[in-house]
Structures are given as structure tokens and as C-alpha cells.
């Protein structure tokens, strides 16, 4: 079976998977132990009002009709309205408002570990069994085992201590752009356009572009601690994989050959070792992006970032079933597309992958 055949098989398989996910969400929300009316009105709901809500939610229709309506709603991204958290707002509008903050957080949470974890791992791999290696490896292991929620609290506590010049010798509040609070939603209006025109269905900016470096700096500074916490596990994994990748590559035949040719150490490391060691890191990075989806709930709740994760948490705790269900559906859509992208990358990058 060729690589592309395998890839298309994976893509085809994702269709029943998506279908089953939607069914599963329906089963959890409509057939689960929690009665939607009870979660709206409280457990003792009864009488005319309950009946009215039951009617308006379509709960009196036969189950298969409810199922079809529900599935059609998800497929057309008509996700209904929020009940409790932002009562009466369309779910899809909420997603448009909240998603950029989560994307901003996720972007930095993927980027930071890349620039810390991989160099550290490569350093440890190039100097195996040195003290630097031990410190980096052991630090990575402990860093990996740290629960995000605890790490977040500790990071916040340490940064709070720096107010007015603490024991660390610098004040995080005034370091770089000044901020008043460690937690909160980052301001994302640092770039944009004022004039918009509608082209078919899309809005297209036509002029009045602006870019504010001050706001950008604040947005980065506010997101940094949260991104480090959210990316902590990825950083440790990348360190570990980077180290083994370098170790393996270093002992491979082509590096031996390069040595025998009399190439300098620097050329060997940059041209032969690094480039090949990067290959196994590709799937790791896409996998990390998936982990971040789950982790964003905790980090956004603790750091007070009004993103999708926090929205999901509020929706779940307040029994806002349509909002929570839709968010899960969106997260799952992202997961499945990321998986397909990962397979595509695999197929394109690594000619050795052959499955049967």
C-alpha cells in the first residue's frame, strides 16, 4: 500500500469517527442522567414553565427527530444558543470572540517550548553524561511531572513576590511594558484595520491598517507566564526527544562517514546531525498541540484568560449544555484536523513511512 493510499484511508476513516463523536455528544447531552430542563430551571422543575421549555427545546419530539436535528445543527455549525453563561447569545458568536485569546495562548505555548526545550535537549545530547546533561535531563523529568494547576499557582506566587523589587532583583510588574495585574485577558487589538468591506461572504479589510507595538508587548508579556506553564510538559518532552534524537544521529553511519571525510565538528553538527534529528520532533510538536487543548482549561481558569477553555469550564459548571457540547465538538474538530495534518506531514516529510 502506498503512502498516499494510507493517507487517504486515514482521511476516510475520520468521517465515521466524526460522526460517532457527534453521536456520542448527543448521547451524553440528551440521554445522559442530566435532564436539560432540570439544568436550566433547577432539579425540581415542573409545571407550565418546564413544559414550555421542553417544547421550545424540541424535547417532546421523538428521539430520532431530535437526533437528526442535533446532527444537522452540528454539521451546519448552527450550534444553538447559550443557556446560562451568556444567556441568549449564539454559541458561534461566542466562539468568534473567545477563540483568538486561546489561539494566542496556544501559539506561545507551542513556540516557547520549541525555543527552550529543543536547544536544551540538543545541548544535552551533544554533551552526554556531563553535568549539564544530568541537570537538563533531570530537570526535564521533574518539569514533566509537574501538574499544570500547581505550577501555575507557584509561578504566580513567585511573580507576585517581585512586586516592588523582590528577592529575584527585578519587578515583573514594571519589567518591560508595565502591567497592573498578573492575570487577565491579553489585549489583542494591537493590529487590525478600521475599514472593512464585504466581498461575497467574507469581510475584507481595505484600509486603515494599524499596528501598536506597545499593546503587542503587553499582550506578549501577559501571556508569557501562562504559556510557559501550559507548554511545560511539551518542553520536557521535546528536551527528552531532542536528546535521544541527537544521540542516535551522532552514532549513525553517515555521521561516521562525514567524520572520516575530515569535516569539521561544526559542519557535522549543523549540516548532518541537527537536520536529521529534527525529523522525529515533527509528530511530537503536533501531538503537543493536542495536549494543549485539554490543558487550556486549567491554565485559562487560573490566569483569568477569557478564552475557550475558561468558557468551556464555566459552561460545564453552570450546566450550559449546548455551549459545553458545542465547544467539545469544536475541540474535537480541531483534533481530527490536526491529526490529518500530522499524517500529511508524515507522508510528505518522511519517505520511509510505509504501512501495510
Amino acid at each position, binding site marked *: 500500500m502506498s503512502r498516499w493510499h494510507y493517507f487517504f484511508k486515514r482521511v476516510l*476513516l*475520520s468521517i*465515521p*469517527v466524526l460522526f*460517532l*463523536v457527534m453521536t*456520542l455528544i448527543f448521547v*451524553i447531552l440528551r440521554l*445522559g*442522567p*442530566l*435532564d436539560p430542563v*432540570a439544568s436550566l430551571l433547577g*432539579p425540581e422543575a415542573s409545571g407550565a414553565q418546564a413544559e414550555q421549555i421542553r417544547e421550545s427545546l424540541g424535547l417532546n419530539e421523538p428521539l430520532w427527530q431530535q437526533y437528526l436535528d442535533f446532527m444537522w445543527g452540528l454539521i451546519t455549525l448552527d450550534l444553538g444558543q447559550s443557556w446560562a453563561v451568556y444567556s441568549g447569545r449564539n454559541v458561534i458568536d461566542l466562539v468568534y470572540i473567545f477563540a483568538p485569546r486561546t489561539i494566542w495562548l496556544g501559539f506561545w505555548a507551542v513556540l516557547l517550548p520549541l525555543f527552550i526545550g529543543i536547544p536544551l535537549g540538543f545541548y544535552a545530547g551533544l554533551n552526554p553524561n556531563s553535568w549539564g546533561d544530568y541537570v537538563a535531563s533531570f530537570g526535564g*523529568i*521533574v518539569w*514533566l*511531572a*509537574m*501538574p*499544570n*494547576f*500547581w*505550577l501555575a*499557582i*507557584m509561578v504566580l*506566587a513567585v511573580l*507576585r*513576590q517581585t512586586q516592588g523589587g523582590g528577592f529575584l532583583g527585578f519587578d515583573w510588574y514594571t519589567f518591560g511594558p508595565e502591567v497592573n495585574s498578573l492575570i487577565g485577558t491579553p489585549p489583542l487589538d494591537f493590529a487590525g484595520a478600521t475599514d472593512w468591506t464585504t466581498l461575497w461572504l467574507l469581510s475584507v479589510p481595505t484600509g486603515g491598517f494599524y499596528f501598536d507595538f506597545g499593546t503587542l508587548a503587553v499582550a506578549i508579556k501577559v501571556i508569557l507566564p501562562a504559556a510557559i506553564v501550559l507548554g*511545560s*510538559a*511539551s518542553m520536557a*518532552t521535546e528536551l*527528552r*526527544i531532542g536528546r*535521544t*534524537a541527537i544521540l*542516535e544521529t551522532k552514532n549513525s553511519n553517515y555521521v561516521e562517514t562525514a567524520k572520516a571525510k575530515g569535516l569539521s565538528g561544526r559542519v557535522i553538527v549543523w549540516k548532518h546531525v541537527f537536520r536529521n534529528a529534527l525529523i522525529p520532533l515533527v509528530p511530537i510538536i503536533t*501531538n*503537543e498541540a493536542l*495536549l494543549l*487543548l*485539554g*490543558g487550556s*482549561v*486549567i491554565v485559562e*481558569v487560573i490566569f483569568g484568560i477569557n478564552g475557550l477553555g475558561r468558557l*468551556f*469550564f464555566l459552561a*460545564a*459548571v453552570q*450546566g450550559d449544555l449546548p455551549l459545553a*457540547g458545542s*465547544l*467539545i465538538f469544536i*475541540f*474535537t474538530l480541531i*483534533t*481530527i484536523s490536526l*491529526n490529518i495534518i500530522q499524517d500529511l506531514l508524515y507522508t510528505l516529510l518522511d519517505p520511509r513511512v510505509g504501512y501495510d
Partner: protein
Amino acid sequence: MSYDEHDDETFRERIDANPRPALIWIVGLIVLLAVELGRIVDGIIALGGAIRFALSGIAAGPSWIGDNVAGTLGSAVGTGAMILTALLLLAIAGSLVKTIFVPGSPLKRLGYDIDQTKQTIDLLDRLFLTAILAVIALLAITSPFSGVLESGINGLTRGLESVSSLPTITGRETISNEGHRTPGGGWEGTFLGLSPAWAWALRVLVVYAYAFVALAWLWKGYTIFREHYREADWTPRDDSINRFRNHYWGIFGLIIVFMFVVMAIWAPALGPVDAEHNLYSPYEHEFEYLDDDTVVSTTHGTANLQSQSQGGESTIGLMSYDDFDRWAPFGTNQDGKDLFTFLVFGARTSLVIGVTAIGLATAIALAMSLITAYYKGLVDTLTIITSDTIISIPAFLLVLLLSVIFQQANHPIADVYNGGLLLALIFAGIYWPGLWRSIRGPSLQVAEQEWVDAAKSYGQTPAMTMRKHMAPYIATYIMIYASLLLGGVIIATAALSFLGLGINPPTPEWGRMVSDGRSYVSTTSWHIATIPGIMIVFVVTGFNALGDGIRDAMDPESDTGTSDAGAAASGGGG
């Protein structure tokens, strides 16, 4: 060795030929068990209770399904569904009883000589056992037999309870640290008049010494068996064990995990105060302390109010006594309750949930991997789609949503163990696909082996082939991932409890400790949130290291770590 020529000897005969090492070991074991008899019997009673609870839950299944079906399709169909479910459960139980407890064919042993194929005989055997079970179940439901059964169980429990009150070497009464200062300057009521701090430290030392001696004795038993009584001089597993013994990282993990397990099992003995007195019902239990040269008594609840750690000067920090001369090795929490006691019982909660969840998930994954590797084809594809479905939903979000839905609906299952059982079941349901995925490759490889083909061509039944010729190999693989995943479950449970969703009060849980102490992290009461976090880091690192160790011990080729790096439990899950 001398017994090599007698390969046909049974284990029993080999022991008879050279009984000395076995006898020495058994005497040691009896001594070890005898000094802790009370606690062991306690454990047996608790286990019996749990089994009884699980059985009654399963037994309630048919009528529950019947009721649900009757609600939508009418009572006649409901009754039918109930009977069907009951029969199905009985059939499963019959098959289980046959595979586990009844070797060979029971029908043949009763003298029936059936001239049929092996499969038919197997089926008939199962039907026979199911029928027997059905008769027993009917008898157990109908009085007066059920009354007799009930009183029999109660009598047994009472008998065991009288044994369980025997003093044990690690008991709170044996080395007591609960006493009060005397006006003369000494201590009264504590072990040998030691200060509560030293008495407590001694008890902790005894608990861990006992646990490590017991572990060493079990290891000794294995080496005695290996040296004197095992038929083969060498098995492949010996190599794995030797590799593990030289794997310091794995040994480190094993020790951490073992200490964690001991902490969970001996939680009542390790706490400086009794959990029931200090944590659960503090206003119903009194203790004595010295107040201005007079010994007065007060309730734990009243005393706790003045031992609260909420920042400032009054904090009861690490390694200190409170104003009532109660020893608090890890200080007190924001309610004045003893943090160490809370911590050890929290370890118990984490372990129970982790082991239940991973045990169930492993069982499902193992069974599925055997079936899919053996039959392949459609079963395999369907399982792939199912597992992909569950995997592609972000696990933490799904766990969160499910636990909220069950808790808000006040489902009876959410009350068991303050939500612990619910969490364990959710974790099992969500984590088995990942486990199954991890071992799919190895199990497909095993299914291709010649010995599996040989077993098939011998006419071995599929169930037997899977159990005897495939399961042992797959089971060792699954242990690696189970160990790594256990850390993940501990983190996820803590994270949910931190959000106020997982384990409800009063059951102690580490994540809730962190949440409670969150606002005091930058004050003098920093210990409340810090210590449980450090404990989680230790335990999860331990499980990760143990998993690494097992992997390298089983398969030295695979120590590159690239293939399953994503499997290590990480804080990313919460």
C-alpha cells in the same frame, strides 16, 4: 542441581524433597502476618464490602434496564429486557467461572460422555454452569435461603471484626503519640513518655521498616523458589529481572511507588492524629492538653479553630506543635486540620481511584487487543473507529463534562466515595482506547507467531489460545503503559478536584488541598498548597520511572524512547 533429572515432579514433590528453605520462609511469613493480623483482617473486611457492593450493583442491573425499557416501550417489553439482561449476566458469569475456577470439562467429570466437537462441549459446559449459577441466584433471592445467607455473612463479618481489633505492631495504640504534657515537664499517655513528635516519628519508622522487610521477604521467597524449587534453571523472565535490578532509574521509581502505596495502605497509622477525630467529625471527639498546669479537655473542632494556618503569625508551619501540644509534622491547613493526616488519606484516595481506573482500563484493553489481534478484519476496524472516536475528544474536557453531568443530576453513582467511583469509571472508559492503541502493534506481532499457529492447528479453542499463548506477552507490554498512565490519572484527578469537580469533601484529595491553600501561597502558610504539589511531582515521577524501568527490562532494544514518548504521564493533562 539435583532435581534436574526428575523433570516430571510436581511443585509439591519438589518441596517435599527439600523442605527446609520453604519452611524457613513460611515461618517468616507467618511471623510477618501475625504482627499485623488486625490490619490485614481489616483490609479483608473492606475488600469484602467492596466486592459485595459491586455484586449488588451488578445484580441491580437487570431491573434497572428493565425499568428504563419499560418506561419507553411498556412493561411487558421491560420484563422481557430484564430477564434477557439477567440471563446475559448469568452467561458471562458462567463463562468466567468456567475459565477461572473449573479446569477441564465439568460435564465429563460428572460422567457424561458426549460425542461432540470440542467447541460444542465447551458451549454445553458453559450452559451447564450458567444453569447452576441461575439456580443459586434464584435460591439467594428467595427467602428463607436469603436470610440464612445474610446472617451467615454477618456472622463471618462479626468474627473477622473481633480479630481485626487485635493490636498490631504499627497500630496507633501500640506506639501512641497522643498524650498531654504533665505539669512536671514530661509527657503522659505517649509511648514510653516520649514527646509526641518522637513517638510519631518512631511509628512512621516502624511502618516503613515493616513494609520494606515484608517486601524483602517476598523477594526472598521468589529467590528461594528460583533457586530450590523451580523446574527450569533459567527462564527469559530471569533476564528481565536482572536487567531491572541494574536499572537504577527504574529501582528509584519502584521505591517511590512502593512508599506511596505504603502511605496509602497505612494511612490510619501514619497520621499524627486520628482522621475520624481530627478531619471527619472533630466536634465529637475530645482530647486532653495542659493549660496553665491543669489538664483540661476540649474537642478537636474547638482546638482546630485556634490552629488555623491562614497566613500571619498564627500559622502552624512545618514540624511544629500547635497551642494544644498536638504535633503537626506538615503544619495545619486553613481550617486548622492536620495537614499530614489529610495528605496520607489523600494518597489513599489517589491510589484507590488510580488503581480502579487503570485496572478496569487495562482489563478492557487487554481483552480487546486479544480479540482484535486474533480475529483481525472487521472487529479490528470497528475497534479502531471506536477508539479513534474516544481519543479524538480531548480527554480532560470529556472527563470534566461527564463528571459535571453526573454530579449535577445527583446520580447515585456520584455519591460513592464522594465521586471517586464515578471518576474511576469515567477514566477507565476514556483511557482504554489509548492503552489498546499502544499495545496493538505488539499484540498483532504475537498473533503472527508460529506457536499461535501451532496452537490453532492443534484444535485449541480461540479463548484458550488467546489466554495461554498470547496474553502473557501482551500483559507485560501493557504493564509499561499502565504504569505511565497511572501518573496521568493521579494528575487528572487532582486537577479536577482543584477545579472543585472531582472528589467532594470530606474525602481528602491532593488537588483540593492545593485549591484550599491557593490564596496563602505568598504568606507564611505557603505549605498548604506547596506540599501536595511536591508530592504529586514525586509520585508521578516515580510512576514514570517505574514504567521506563519495566520497558527497558523487558525489551532492551526499545530504550530509544522515540516511539512512545507521548505515553509518559505529564502535567499537561491538568
